[in-house]
């Protein structure tokens, strides 16, 4: 064996051993408990943050009308259909009057009869009046004759009694006349009432609007208050937005909003908060805000789902960190602050958040502090970390 070949063999083997040891060393260092946790970090800087709230809602009409009868009845005709524009006062539907016309006729006959009764009562009164006048004359005459003793006292008293009786008859006939007139008024009122009821069977449009549903067809029976048609005012469409209570801080009337309709997901529409409902939904834990459109888009449908973003204030200055850096703890929020290359969990107090994930830090950090944003494993106090520019994807 030549020493040269021995040497080369030794060198080759050594090289192989070196490669193996380096590879093994790399394996041990890269995996397992000895390897550092790769993290990305960020220096906390003063910045500004525009708080905003996001919610979903449905398009609703601010003013919508349920058109229905005030008493139970059968629908005779429906004159408007879904999608039609109607004017205020237009007859939209009619309810079958059933026996109302006959009752009206009967009432009319009763009225005529009452009119005759009044005439008869008036004639009776006239007759009574004439009788009283005659009795009065007779009585006066007999009193004179009696005073001069031409007739007996009993005859005078008889005439006086006749006068009293005639006066009473007149009173009775007057009362009778009054009664007949009242009866006439009552029947007139009855008749008016029936006419009113008949008019009420015509369901009229209260305002100019759009028919959105036709809930009963001719022939069907509806109860009092049940809708035959539903009408909305298209000019009053707005969005009923539901916002998470936990994030609804700063919500106020008049704030600018962005409305994205599900049918036009790429074109946000401008709007503003028109009303904040004082009553929250306690079951879903949502606040409800009404957001009106700056300009109502054409062809907007009631009930369409929307996404609403409300800007709840102007930019607020302060220390800003991304929310990926925030670690929620049982005691409150914390961040992993890098001090001399070691992570330390530091409690912080947080302010507003923006929708792009920035959080305002009120207390606990100072400008220039380095905090861990992303990490490939759960961090522990004082763990070994290696700061890299990014953890996944191609380097920027």
């Amino acid at each position, binding site marked *: 064996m030549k020493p040269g070949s021995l040497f080369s063999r030794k060198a080759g083997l050594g090289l192989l051993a070196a490669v*193996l040891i380096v590879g093994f060393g790399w394996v041990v260092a890269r995996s397992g408990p000895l390897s550092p946790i790769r993290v990305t970090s960020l220096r906390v800087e003063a910045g500004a943050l525009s708080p905003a709230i*996001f919610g979903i809602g449905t398009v609703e009409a601010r003013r919508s009308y349920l058109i229905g009868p005030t008493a139970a009845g059968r629908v005779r005709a429906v004159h408007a259909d879904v999608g039609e524009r109607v004017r205020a006062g237009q007859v939209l539907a009619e309810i079958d009057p059933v026996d109302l016309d006959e009752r009206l006729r009967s009432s009319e006959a009763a009225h005529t009869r009452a009119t005759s009764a009044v005439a008869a009562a008036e004639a009776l009164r006239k007759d009574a009046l004439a009788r009283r006048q005659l009795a009065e004359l007779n009585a006066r005459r007999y009193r004179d004759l009696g005073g001069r003793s031409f007739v007996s006292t009993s005859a005078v008293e008889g005439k006086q009694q006749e006068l009293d009786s005639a006066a009473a008859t007149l009173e009775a006939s007057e009362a009778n006349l009054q009664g007949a007139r009242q009866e006439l008024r009552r029947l007139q009122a009855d008749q008016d009432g029936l006419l009113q009821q008949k008019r009420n069977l015509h369901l009229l449009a209260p305002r100019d609007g759009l028919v959105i549903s036709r809930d009963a067809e001719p022939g069907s029976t509806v109860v009092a208050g049940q809708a035959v048609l539903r009408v909305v005012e298209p000019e009053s469409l707005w969005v009923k937005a539901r916002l998470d209570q936990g994030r609804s801080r700063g919500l106020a009337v008049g704030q600018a909003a962005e409305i994205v309709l599900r049918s036009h997901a790429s074109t946000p529409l401008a709007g503003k908060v028109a009303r904040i409902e004082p009553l929250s939904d306690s079951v879903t834990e949502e606040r409800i805000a009404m957001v009106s459109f700056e300009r109502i888009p054409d062809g907007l449908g009631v009930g369409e789902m929307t996404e609403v973003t409300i800007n709840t204030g102007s930019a607020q200055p302060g220390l800003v960190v991304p929310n*990926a850096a925030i*670690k929620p703890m*049982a005691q409150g929020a914390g961040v992993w602050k890098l001090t001399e290359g070691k992570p330390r969990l530091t409690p912080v107090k947080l302010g507003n958040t923006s929708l792009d994930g920035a959080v305002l830090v009120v207390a606990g950090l100072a400008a220039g502090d380095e905090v861990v944003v992303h990490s490939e494993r*759960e961090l522990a106090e004082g763990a070994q970390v290696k700061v890299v520019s990014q953890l996944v*994807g191609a380097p920027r």
Partner: protein
Amino acid sequence: MISLAGRDILHSWPRFVLTGVGLGLLIGVTLTMAGVYRGMVDDARALLNNSGADIWVVQQDTQGPYAESSSIHDDAYRSLRVLPGVARAASVTYLTMQVRRGDIDVRAMVVGFEPGQPGEPGYLVAGRQITRSHYEAVADVKTGFQLGDTLRIRRHDYRVVGLTRRMVSSGGDPMVFIPLKDAQEAQFLKDNDAILGERARTAANPALNRPGVPGLLEALQASQTANRNVNAVLVQVAPGADTASVAGEIRRWKHLQAYTRPQMEEILVSKLIATSARQIGMFLVILAIVSAAIVAFIIYTMTLGKIREIAVLKLIGTRNRTIAGMILQQAMGLGLIGFMVGKTAATVWAPFFPKYVLLEPGDAARGLLVVMVICALASTLAIRVALRVDPATAIGG
């Protein structure tokens, strides 16, 4: 002093190295199999870690939410939060489903959580946490989603705003985190055809569609599509509070089942993944025995191949101890090379496995010990043969 073993290795080093590498790959497979087993157990633990909970509150008499299905009302967390010792409580839903990514779909566990509460992913590798109460998602990198991607669950599109790592279900499916309200809808909302069918069935029922009661049918139909259930409530206990006693309080007074961390781990590890873990364990045992046998045979045959040289050594008066030492050293060297190659190979190919493979340093150390013991035992067989060799074989026959 000249190392006899070293000289012998130098003499036929390609053969030695190749044997070592082959042995190493075999050891690598065994280590990987152990890693697969550890990975399964670790997936189960990761699920518990990631939820960040101390107590899991689920439907009474169930072992949910992972091992069994559980359904409780989503306002249950309110009555839990006021219990003494409870720091935070939040509802969560879990649903394993196919999530659409473009044209293909990915198997994922969809987790509905409340932002900032237990159940939220504890750390991100990219992007940010969810800020909107609807239609945003944080996905595990294993799902293949990237920041800004759109994923579809039921009828809604969600935008991926953050990525996590090692957020998996007990079955190893990567997780997708979406806001709780969306997840409730995804879990309980039927498809449109089913809803229409349900409406028609309700309307056809004369008891529910009564002409004299307008609005009854609408109210019924609205209540049919709304569902206010969740799968579990995750509870974090206040610092200093006793987890077991808080769980006991919940079980006793709230009429819900509550599991502490060790109990949940017991359910997951010894019930949920028990069969598949035993399957892998069985395979691991067989593989380990086969590997040990092969290592022993390789060393034995390697020695047999050198029988003539050993005879020469004996002939020139080499002591038995020296010869035994040579064989032992070679066997140990082979074992060491094999182990290093195996460990390296296992580490290199582990990330390419579809499910998580956890190579624990403890397992590696145990593996090294076992390899060395097997090599030593196998070399004793070879040494016995070598020492029995008749020096005459060197010359004649």
